[in-house]
């Protein structure tokens, strides 16, 4: 059975709310717990004609987080739009970063092997984006309520390399990352208030192989134990799938391709890649983080 022969290959994406007083592209408050749709304005409601203006403080905090993770700050980073329809996404696109993120590279030390070697998880990139609003499906029978207080709240997404090999390592990585962000004072990292969410990309392979398997994305997990449980469950599921495909291959030659969406945990808001269109946002000038300013952040946090 493949369960004994295979191990998980996991990369994690952590979405963290930055500790700013106002939203990423408008002056609305980011306070948690306000009555629905109170913290809104023409920009975050996407009224016709409204424009975004970047919150400099968010860039500052994002830069600080990136430096704390040993990332390289890219002198030029660009905001882009991720286009998809969803009722709690007022503009019909999310402002995020793609080709040119705020920062790249970096790593997190999560522990040591028995022989004393560092266990490091690589950081691929750190980029800035805005949150969507909240859809409330269980409050009004037959209707979905929309609360846009969160729409436009500044987030950073920290993307790890697929360096994680066990659910325990995943937990260690997330807890270490949380500590670092707490220490840097860039986020409240509060699970309850939704200021931290995790997406996991998981595939399986026999140790020693170099070609990654077909991955599954498990999205919107808001507790570390949920991540650990989901990874274990997904490891089981993928191994079972491989076993059944191999049995079938012997019997027939038909290959059943695993669905890229993990049905049990979540649905994919943005649909398939052909429906998600991305292009650079001309509404915002390129964000140039000057070397001087990133150096001053570094100095501040080294001292």
């Amino acid at each position: 059975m493949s369960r004994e022969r295979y191990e998980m290959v996991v990369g994690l994406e952590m979405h963290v709310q930055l500790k700013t007083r106002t939203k990423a592209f408008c002056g609305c408050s980011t306070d948690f717990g306000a009555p629905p749709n109170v913290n809104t304005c023409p920009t975050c409601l996407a009224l016709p004609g409204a424009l975004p203006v970047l919150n400099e403080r968010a860039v500052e905090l994002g830069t600080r987080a990136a430096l704390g993770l040993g990332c390289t700050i890219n002198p030029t980073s660009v905001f882009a739009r991720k286009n998809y329809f969803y009722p709690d996404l007022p503009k019909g696109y999310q402002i995020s970063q793609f080709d040119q993120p705020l920062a790249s590279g970096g790593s997190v030390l999560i522990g040591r092997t028995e022989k004393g070697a560092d266990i490091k998880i690589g950081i691929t990139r750190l980029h800035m984006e805005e949150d969507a609003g909240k859809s409330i499906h269980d409050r009004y029978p037959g209707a979905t309520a929309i609360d846009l207080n969160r729409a436009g709240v500044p987030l950073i997404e920290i993307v790890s390399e697929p360096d994680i090999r066990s659910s325990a390592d995943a937990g260690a990585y997330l807890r270490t990352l949380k500590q670092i962000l707490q220490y840097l004072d860039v986020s409240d990292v509060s699970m309850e208030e939704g200021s931290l969410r995790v997406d996991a990309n998981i595939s399986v392979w026999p140790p020693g192989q170099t070609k990654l398997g077909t991955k599954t994305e498990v999205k919107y997990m808001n507790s570390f134990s949920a991540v650990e449980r989901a990874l274990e469950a997904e490891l089981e599921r993928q191994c079972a799938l491989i076993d059944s495909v191999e049995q079938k291959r012997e019997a027939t030659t038909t290959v059943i391709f695993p669905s890229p969406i993990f049905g049990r945990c979540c649905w994919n808001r943005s649909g398939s890649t052909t429906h998600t269109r991305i292009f650079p946002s001309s509404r915002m000038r390129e964000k140039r983080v000057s070397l001087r300013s990133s150096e001053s952040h570094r100095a501040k946090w080294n001292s």
Partner: protein
Amino acid sequence: MSVENFTMLGAADIASAVRAGDASPTEMVRASFNRARDIGAGHDELNIFLHSDQEASEHEAKSMQERLQSAADIGILAGVPVAVKDNIATLGLPTTCGSKILAGYVSPYEATAITRLRANGALVVAKTNMDEFAMGSSTENSAFGPTRNPHDVRCVPGGSSGGSAAAVAAGITPIALGSETGGSVRQPAAFCGVVGVKPTYGRVSRYGLVAFASSLDQIGVVGRTVDDAALGLESIAGFDKMDSTSSDAEVPVYRLSALGKPAPEVGAPDTEAMRIGRNPVALPPPPSAKTLEGIVIGKPREYFPDTLDTNIKDLCERALDRFRSMGATVRDISLPRSPLAIPVYYILAPAEASSNLARFDGVRYGLRVDSGKGLKAMYESTRSQGFGPEVTRRILLGTYVLSAGYYDAYYKKAQAVRTLIADDFRAVFTSGVNAIFTPTTPTPAFPVGAISDPYEMYLNDIFTVTANLAGVPAISVPIGRMRRLPVGGQVITAHFDEYTMFRVAYALEASLGQEAHQ
């Protein structure tokens, strides 16, 4: 000053009379509404306006009167009635973009350009008809019926700011705001025999301008004369913290009228003038001195093709002769990549539009068509019933070119060519050319319904769209008539050099005098 002369008064004349206490804002508002009634601006006639409210406008005028009496300085547009294209957010009057999807929508906030107009004393009297979401060149794409050209009601006024150009041409307001993405102020200004300005990208805040293609969009001004347009632009230009792409470059004084030039004499009013194609505009007197000494005017060969209508070519040559006679040097130049502008524009503009128009989803405001068959069905029926055919076409085009797998082949390539087109302009302006002169449009106004092929319609913008792609300022000035219909000439200058653009336009207007309208 007499209200009898209203249709011939420049904005500067009105403002100085109001500030001097020789005329009241209320009189000006009434004169504007009376003119609209007399000339038949209503829905069943010229169909210039989508929304207006005389009572509210008079109320506003009255409170301005009170402020005037308390010796407050009301500003350079004191008491000047202004019409505004319906894609610019205004408090009080709806903002529908000529679309069913926004029918009845009233913005809870105001565009920066409107706030500035009001701060300078202007009175917003009406929202003007337009091609839906500014997509079109004839104002026939409005969900609320086409606007007619005041010079010939059988013809279109151009577009997409057709209502704004028609309002000024019909003598209802001396100034109107329009918007440009690919010639939407200059082309209707040319068709209606008035002046139309598209400023440098970044010169005017876009906050409150409903986005079509954000990297090209810019609010522009229609004026009866160059001075009206200059005054209008001066009052709305400048940095705005609400628009990250607005420039903090200093805004010079553009108005000739600011130099203490006396207001021109005007004759008796002729309220029927517009109907029969005569222009009631009061023109500045011809200058006695050569005024373009030292200016080099480029004549780009790509904008004077062999196929260009000979009437338009002749009118342009006459304008170029005037430049020479005023001391300018006319130099043959080339903008070799300009012929690629239309295909590039019709990739980039729809791509941006497909994203910008995603917010019209029936969830928060505007039309919602919900048959209870779920979210996807609601989106589909709202958007397919809310958007007209041209908007739908461009959303489809834009969605296609941004789709994974096509992005590099279309959007990215078009962006690269856009840069080349802008490079051509830069090269010309750094080689000692101060301004470029071209025809504004390849033809004068065409009859309503005459063009049904979308591509043929797109070619109307062939001479104007390059300025949007390059981001440079451009103005259309009347240079004469063919078959009794107005023809416009275009002056393009370097980024943020509106000053030279106005200088050349003033000189041309003064030199042509009434010939510009004959």
